[in-house]
Every structure is written in C-alpha cells, then in structure tokens.
C-alpha cells in the first residue's frame, strides 16, 4: 500500500543525529513506493537539508527560525502540523529522543492517531506496517499494527538501517509555520550539562560505570579505556545519584536507552531499570566484584574482579589491538 511518510529529523545541537537517516530508511520501506519527506526544525539549520535530501528524503521541509532555537512544545508541534497539512502523509516518524517523545503524542492526539513508541523494527505486512517494540522494560516484545488515516511512531536509535546515500539534490522548501504570538509555555533558562563527545544513544561501543566506580575520579580508568576503543562513556543511575558523574551519562529506564554493538559494564550490579536501558546491546561484558550480581545473567562475557584492576588491564590489551 502506497503511503507518504514524513520523517521529523532529530538534531543534537546543530548536527543531525544518525537516527534521522535510520528513520528515512524505515520510511522508504513503509512508503512502499510513496513519497518520503523530511522535516527539519531548528535555528540556523537550513544547511542540513541537503544531507537529508541526499540520504533518503524525496522532499525536505525546513522550519528554520528564532522560535525553533530552543525546544518549546507548541512551536515544534506547530511545525509538524504545518508539514502534515502541506504534505498529507499517512505516517509520521520521530526519533525516540527527548523532543520526539514529547512532540509525537501531541501530534498523535490532535489527529486521534495511534502511535507506536520506541520502535526497533518496522516491516510491511500486506497493507499494514508492523512495528516491533519492547515492553516490560525490554523483557518482552510486541509487534503491532495501527489502524487509521495517520500512524505515528518514535524510533529507537541504532536499531534500524540508515537509508543509503543517493546524492539527490533540490526539493528543499521553507515551511511557513503559523502560531499565535506568544504560546503558553516559556523556557526561562537552560542549564546545559550534557557532555560533548560521542552521543551515547548512537555509540557503537559504550564503557559504563556503576556505583562500583566509587567516586568521580573512579571514572578515569573507564574514560581511558573508552578513549582507546573510541567509545562513549555511560553510567548507571546509581553512579549518578551518588554524584560520581552527571545525569547526562545515565543509561537506563529513566536515562538513555542504548543499543551499542558492545556494552562494557563496570561495577554495575544490573538492576532491572538499568537493564531496560541496555539489554538489547549486541554484546555485553560485565566486570563486577560480586559473582552473584544480576548483570552476569545478561552478560555474554563476565569478569569477576575489581574493576580498578581489570579495566586498566583491558585498556592495555586494547592498546595492543589498536596499535
């Protein structure tokens, strides 16, 4: 069944996140011959339209303006609504990011549309799209289909294949977004704490620390290993609560959900809320003093020992590998 699909691109600062291209890949599959359009929302981001056009979008709509420099729900929802009005899609895909999770249900509600959240797989089944998503903190999965004129989904990063590069050009249009002069919600201030470096939700390799890291300085050996592996550094909620690191590093049910190829958990016990954030990793390595730690039940490889002894040994071995 031919359908037009709108992908709302996801940005990190002034860069497009990979998930935007993964969404375009999925969009192409479910469009089933229909048109795929991308919507780019931000301030000073118009230059990014070309890469969306060159990697999956038949058409790019740009909502670029002051009002989009900082995320305000009403502004972003208005941009998506304008794109829906202009393009008439049958499906709208968002990233399962902070912004995607907030705007998608706003849009879905306005259209009384069904929405599948945190999707890890999309496929065609006759005239339907089947969405696979985790439930019960990743302990089970459901495949769902959505009835209705408009279907909405948010996509988990690092799970779907990115659209191939086509090198296409042109077809970029500025989208005039209308909303009332002052919307109710106001962002008074933004305290930026998110650390630079590899984006956790897109990282292929993550070295992660839990309470076992014992202090802020305790993360140093993990950062060293990460540097050699080209990995991102994450943390469990326990480590963040204890003040060893910033919450922007948190992986888990209330933090980021990640799907790396390799997840190295150091001094992390493996509470269910943490597992919900990483259990879908391709390969899990666990390092913990406690042989009974639940993390060993999900780990492909376990090392029982003191992370302050083990992690430096891994770093040394990694250096030899990448020498």
């Amino acid at each position, binding site marked *: 069944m031919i359908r037009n699909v709108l992908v709302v691109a996801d940005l990190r600062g002034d860069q497009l996140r990979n998930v935007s291209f993964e969404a375009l890949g999925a969009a192409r599959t479910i469009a089933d011959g229909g048109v795929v359009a991308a919507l780019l929302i931000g301030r000073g981001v118009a230059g990014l339209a070309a890469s969306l056009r060159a990697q999956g979008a038949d058409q790019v709509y740009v909502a670029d303006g002051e009002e989009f420099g900082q995320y305000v729900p009403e502004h972003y929802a208005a941009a998506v609504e304008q794109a829906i009005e202009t393009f008439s899609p049958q499906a709208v895909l968002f990233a399962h990011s902070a912004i995607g999770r907030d705007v998608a249900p706003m849009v879905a509600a306005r259209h009384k549309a069904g929405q599948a959240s945190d999707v890890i797989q999309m496929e065609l089944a006759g005239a339907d799209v089947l969405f696979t998503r*985790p439930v*019960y903190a990743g302990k089970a999965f459901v495949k769902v*289909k959505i009835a209705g004129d408009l279907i909405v989904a948010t996509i988990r990063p690092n799970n779907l294949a990115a659209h191939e590069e086509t090198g296409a050009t042109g077809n970029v249009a500025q989208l005039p977004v209308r909303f009332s002069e002052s919307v109710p919600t106001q962002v008074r201030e933004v305290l930026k*704490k998110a650390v630079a470096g590899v984006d956790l939700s897109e990282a292929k390799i993550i070295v992660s620390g839990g309470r076992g890291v014992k202090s802020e300085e305790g993360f140093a050996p993990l950062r060293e290993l990460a540097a050699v*592996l080209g990995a991102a550094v994450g943390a469990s909620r326990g480590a963040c609560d204890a003040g060893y690191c910033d*919450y922007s590093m948190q992986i888990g049910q*209330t933090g980021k959900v990640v799907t790396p190829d390799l997840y190295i958990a150091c001094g992390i016990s493996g509470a269910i809320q943490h597992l*919900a954030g990483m259990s879908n990793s391709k390969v899990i390595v666990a390092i913990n003093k406690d*042989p009974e730690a639940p993390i060993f039940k999900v780990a492909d*490889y376990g090392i029982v020992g003191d992370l302050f002894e083990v992690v430096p040994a891994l770093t040394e071995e990694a250096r030899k590998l990448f020498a």
Partner: protein
Amino acid sequence: MNIIVCIKQTFDTEARIVLENDAVKEDGVQFILNPYDEYAVEEAITLKEATGGMVTVVTVGPARVEEAIRTALAMGADEAIHVADEAAFGDEVTVSEVLAAVIKGRPYDLIIAGNQAVDDGSGQVAVRVAELLGIPHISTVTKLEINGGEVIAERDAEGDTEIVSAPLPALVTAQQGLNEPRYPSLIGIRKASKKPLTKMTVAELGLDAQAIASRVSVVALFLPAAKGAGRVLEGDTAARAQTLFHELRQTSKVL
C-alpha cells in the same frame, strides 16, 4: 488548589514475564502503583499540604487496580475515580480520551502523571490528555513550584536541565528524582478505605466506544531470544583481558 493525578497499576518491575496463550500471564504477578505515578501522587499531596485543596486520582483498569487506588489514597489523596468499564481498556488513544473526559467535567488547576508506565513504556497518555484538554504540558519534571497562576518546573532534557513555565491549568509529567514518595502510614491506610471512590463508565462520560476504540492492535508477542549462558572468564587478570579481546574480535566480531 485542585490537583488531578492520573495513575496506572502495573506489574512489579521485578516480575518475570511469562507468556501463555499469546498473552502475558497475570497469575502470581505482583501489581504495584506505577513507580513514576508514585512521584506524581507524592508531589500532588505535598502541594496540597502546602496550599490546601483536593487531590483526586483517576485511573482506567479492571477491578484489581483498586489496590493501586487505595495506595494513592493511603498516601494522602482525597478521592478517586475509577473507570472499570471494558470499553475504556484500549490503547493510548482510548485511555487518553477516557481520562480527558473524566477530567473535563471537574475543576482543576494542575494535572500530574508519571512520565511513563513501566509496563508498556510508551509515555504517550499524559501528553495526549493535555492536548485533548487544550492545556500546556511540561514533561519529565524533576522539580516543580507553583507561583501565582503558573507552574515553574525543572525538566530533564537528555541531561540538560530546562527551566520551563506554563500558566495554570497545566499538566506535568513526573520524572524519577522529583521527590521521595512517602510510605502510606497505618492511619493513612485506615482512612483510605473511607475516602470516596467513584466508578464511571464510558457511556456516563458521554463517549462513543467505537469512536475511541484502539487504533493499535497486537499482532505478536514474544520473549527475547534466549541468550546462551554468558561465559565467565577464568585466569589471572591479564589472561582474562587477552581472552576477552580475542573473543570480541574473533567470535562476536564487535571489535
């Protein structure tokens, strides 16, 4: 201040998931008040204790969800509305339409809900309710304050903290860390059994069951592929490090 809290009863997070007849088995499962809704209830009660007013909890679900309602009432909520009508049991479209219909008929200044339910993890219903009611929302809130006719909240945005305000009436969703939910006291538990619990049906709410019927239907439900037992590496640290990287390179091919 009149505060409405949307709550959901969920499986305990530690529950083992067992599938039977294409559904998740409920026998022997411990049910709890959704942890994120606990933060919402706690915040509502704290606000009420400071400013006076009423806290009303609203929920959709079968008879067993009464236990979660009693927990909220025992914590200090004043009354509850329970839509136990099967026509209300559906996807996020259905539940949000029902909750919005319940809330629309009542006076309220603030609505608080957990930002996601730990069973389905979809995190849509609360934001949908705000849209249906035509009120602003602030999600994943880690701190909140009422000042004059507005709510000022700190929200967790992927590690950054945004300080956001919205005029009342508004809806906020609770993120972990918003507060420390209190344990119901024995007195609270006793008082809870006497607090008003009203049952409502979809028809009473003036809703057309067909119009609000689920858009989403489940085609398959499955457990993750059983992982082969992991390998605990043996030997001294240097040996284990060597083995690990050999495996990661040659066997799992992730390096």
